[in-house]
């Protein structure tokens, strides 16, 4: 005799609706990212602090009004912070804690786990955009209205490309190594990857390389969209597409569940 009513565990397996699984996955992962203190520091507080300091302090020579050229770079930084660094670290520790295996053992299709993560990454970027754009407007930002649709497209493309690279890094290595590497890459790309400084302000030879990095491509194209209202050229779009495709292709091959 057990203390359970007969029939409570009678089997009735059936897969839940896919839309609900996608919604639950995306909502859960976005919520986890937004209430993790270290993630919020990385994705919101640091970009916010840089937005204010780069605008207010005249450390780097920039055309007036300074906030107009700072804001697009900060948006590029925000995308890199959440979609790449945040994503990689979260994935590294998710694997450490066995959640990928846990979810892979359920009726959730594998592709849905990827879609859920992508949607969560996009949702976090939307939150970042709202907060950072509001702060930039308070600092006097007036983006070129004509360039806003281009900027949104670039941000979406950048999120997917950086997300794929984050999944590549976070999916294959040990959590501690992911943590160190993701932060190092973030810092390196911020300083010399075309985010904090425009390519032209970097030491000779670097400027050509920076245009080929996802960070440089995103920051430069966002700047021309939001400052000059220009459509992005084919180069930054192609650079982001190539990094994204290469990252995703490799990540699929190298990802380990635990």
């Amino acid at each position, binding site marked *: 005799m057990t203390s359970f009513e007969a029939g409570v565990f009678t089997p009735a397996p059936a897969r839940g609706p896919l839309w609900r699984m996608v919604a639950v996955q995306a909502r859960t992962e976005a919520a986890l990212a937004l209430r993790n203190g270290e993630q919020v520091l990385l994705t919101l507080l640091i970009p916010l602090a840089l937005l204010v300091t780069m605008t207010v302090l005249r450390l780097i020579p920039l055309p007036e009004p300074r906030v107009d050229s700072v804001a697009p770079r900060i948006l590029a930084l925000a995308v890199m912070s959440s979609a790449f660094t945040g994503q990689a670290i979260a994935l590294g520790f998710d694997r450490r804690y066995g959640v990928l295996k*846990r979810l892979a053992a359920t009726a959730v299709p594998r592709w849905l786990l990827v879609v859920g993560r992508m949607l969560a990454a996009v949702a976090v970027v939307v939150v970042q955009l709202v907060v950072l754009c509001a702060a930039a407007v308070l600092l006097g930002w007036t983006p070129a209205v004509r360039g806003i649709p281009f900027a949104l497209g670039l941000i979406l493309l950048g999120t997917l490309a950086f997300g794929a690279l984050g999944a590549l890094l976070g999916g294959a290595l040990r959590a501690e190594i992911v943590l160190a590497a993701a932060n190092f890459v973030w810092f390196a790309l911020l300083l010399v990857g075309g985010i904090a400084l425009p390519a032209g302000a970097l030491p000779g030879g670097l400027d050509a390389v920076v245009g080929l990095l996802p960070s440089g491509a995103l920051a430069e194209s966002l700047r021309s969209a939001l400052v000059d209202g220009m459509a992005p050229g084919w180069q930054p779009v192609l650079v982001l597409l190539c990094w994204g495709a290469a990252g995703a292709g490799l990540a699929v091959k190298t990802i380990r569940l635990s």
Partner: protein
Amino acid sequence: MTTHLGAPVVEVSGLVKRFGRKSAVNRLDLRVERGQVLALLGPNGAGKTTTVEVCEGFLRPDQGTVRVLGLDPVRDGAALRVRIGVMPQGGGAYPGIRAGEMLRVVASCAADPLDPAWLLEVLGLTATARVPYKRLSGGQRQRLSLACALVTRPELVFLDEPTAGMDPQARRLVWDLVAALRADGVSVLLTTHMMDEAETLADQVVIIDNGRAVAAGSTHQLTTDDPDARRLRFRARAGLDTGALAATLTDDCRVDEIEPGSYLVAGRVDPQVVSVVTAWCAEQGVLAEEIRVATRSLEDVFLDLTGRELRA
């Protein structure tokens, strides 16, 4: 449904799984009947988890055939995972997720899941429902993991070391749950290195060591089938001449003083042997106390088969 009543829910034959040059599982056969509980019993590193992960479709077998609910776990993994519940060894959840949220995430995979709040209560997790996973104790993680395995109303569950790290009360609860699953027609394949767990829960036990099944059968069969493997234990004053006692018995009986004053006669223990032993003691002027004829425990079976302690 591709399976019909009567077909086994898990059928493994000749399974070989190697990691590099080391074979973790070596020509293993396994059969779980519908509605039954099978315990895969063996020491750490015996190949239990590997076997279970092959059945779940996480690992591809190197040789042999594996059918779970009539499906190939690797090829038909998506269809299979809808119907099974899995408790991976050591659990699994997002580090920052609250216990209750994790259970609801897994519940969302099923069209008609069990009520997560009820399941949390059953497993004593209501008070910890809002605690992040990384701050749960080992036993709490295990209970959450079990809840995740059951919430989708599966017809077959794989429980890898379900009571590892649990206190005795929680172990009782898990035993009770497994009994309830069985009563409701859920098939269970569990692994354990604890004899009492296998003896209490399982209809069938497969003892596995170094990737091989060294014995298989019901607990009853494993421990009583062999009339040569009964044991007579008794207590008397320490230092009796066991050699002299053995000489009065048939050749297939062994006599040992396993600790001072505690004697064990192993072999073909029949009524005649009991009578000879008590008579011999009477001749020595000692009273044989606590005379007990018992079949082997699973632990004895394991020890006899492998020469090693199971818990070691």
